[in-house]
């Protein structure tokens, strides 16, 4: 079952964007008419256990072109997504064994000790800066900065094209994080010295 394209997309779009965002679902006025009585073809064996009058919660009568029914449209996507990820995980788990080295031994320091991959950007940064500064600052500034975003960016624009500067800035931070993480993952070897992974090999386990 496919979702047909709306004939009058732009007009509808305006209606939607102007709708007040805070309006609670099913606020009075937006409420639908009562759902039709049972006895619709295909429901003959439906046994009525209880009939609860639901004026505003079940929005059966909402205009069909601005919303779609959760069943089947959204649930089908969620089901397929879950199946896809499951298949991916099953294949990965059959093909790639999780690493396990020798038992932990505090007396044997490995050539290079690396944090888990998502902290390798941080570990890389620590090798540039005074660790007391970097170690204390990076994580709180990163997480705190992220939390502050909605309170700092008060412009009414939402689309990325309408707030280019901020989007580019955010992307730079993300890509910068990606780069230092990649360096930490692939280009650091014994003594945290620079290595070329295709020459010296990988010093990295997931």
């Amino acid at each position, binding site marked *: 079952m496919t979702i047909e394209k709306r004939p009058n997309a732009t007009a509808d779009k305006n209606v939607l964007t102007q709708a007040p965002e805070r309006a609670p679902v099913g606020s009075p006025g937006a409420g639908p008419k009562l759902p039709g009585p049972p006895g619709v073809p295909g429901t003959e064996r439906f046994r009525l256990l209880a009939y609860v009058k639901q004026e505003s919660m079940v929005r059966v009568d909402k205009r069909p072109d601005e919303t779609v029914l959760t069943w089947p449209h959204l649930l089908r996507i969620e089901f397929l997504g879950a199946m896809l*990820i499951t298949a991916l995980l099953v294949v990965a788990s059959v093909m790639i064994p999780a690493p396990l080295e020798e038992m932990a031994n505090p007396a044997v320091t490995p050539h290079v000790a690396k944090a888990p991959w998502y902290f390798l950007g941080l570990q890389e940064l620590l090798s540039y800066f005074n660790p007391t500064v970097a170690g204390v600052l990076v994580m709180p500034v990163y997480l705190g900065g992220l*939390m502050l975003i909605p309170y700092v960016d008060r412009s009414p624009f939402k689309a990325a094209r309408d707030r280019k500067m901020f989007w580019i800035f955010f992307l730079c931070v993300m890509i910068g994080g990606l780069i230092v993480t990649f360096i930490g993952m692939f280009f650091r070897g014994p003594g945290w010295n620079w290595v070329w992974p295709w020459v010296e090999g990988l010093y990295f386990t997931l």
Partner: protein
Amino acid sequence: MSNGEPHSDGNPVVRWVKESSVWRSLFRQPYPTTSRTRSLAVFNNVFLHLHPVRVKRHAVRYTYTFGLGGISFFLFLVLTVTGLYLMFFYVPSISQAYQDIQTIEATVAFGAFVRNMHRWAAHLMVLTVFLHMIRVFYHGAYKPPREFNWVIGVLLLFFTLALSFTGYLLPWDQIAYWAITVGTQMATYAPLLSSESSFFILGGVQVGQGTLLRFYVAHVIVFPLIAAIFMIVHFWRIRKDGGISGPV
């Protein structure tokens, strides 16, 4: 989808089952084929009613969310199930943990498979949560009224990392030991906090039995519980903020 023939099974046994009062107390309506029954199917189901009965049309476009939040949540569920299985065979003691992992790998039924899945799902979840955050930023979906849900999201990011990090120590092999040694050192560079925070995190002066037990408890109960609670709030807020943002 279905052709309006929800349960017209010719088979008398199937019909007998479907007409029994047990079946009908479980499935209060036939397979939903009308708008009305499809709405009720969502509305009356404790799991499905996380969703509204209808969603914005643009919200089900794959390319709006790429399903990243949903995938992160699904991975969390996968991790819960696989993690529970591993718990039956694992003791958080420095003299036993490593052997337990070896036993899981070698003799436990599906042990290696489940361990692999737990690990790959964990790495994937860190990735999808980051990508989800970037998607949300791209759409400006942190703008009013969704500011607070973004903050909840950042907390979820933190707890996702914390879960992954605490789990990383549990195999008690060289990778685990030294990764956590390096990782916790980074956290304890703070000049005033150093000795206290290091003791708080490690349960000792270096990574050892105290650390393993601490990380285990955090990994299997404290952080999953907190993350689950924040996820509930996260989903609740999506509904209360009027569903998915947009269209942009």
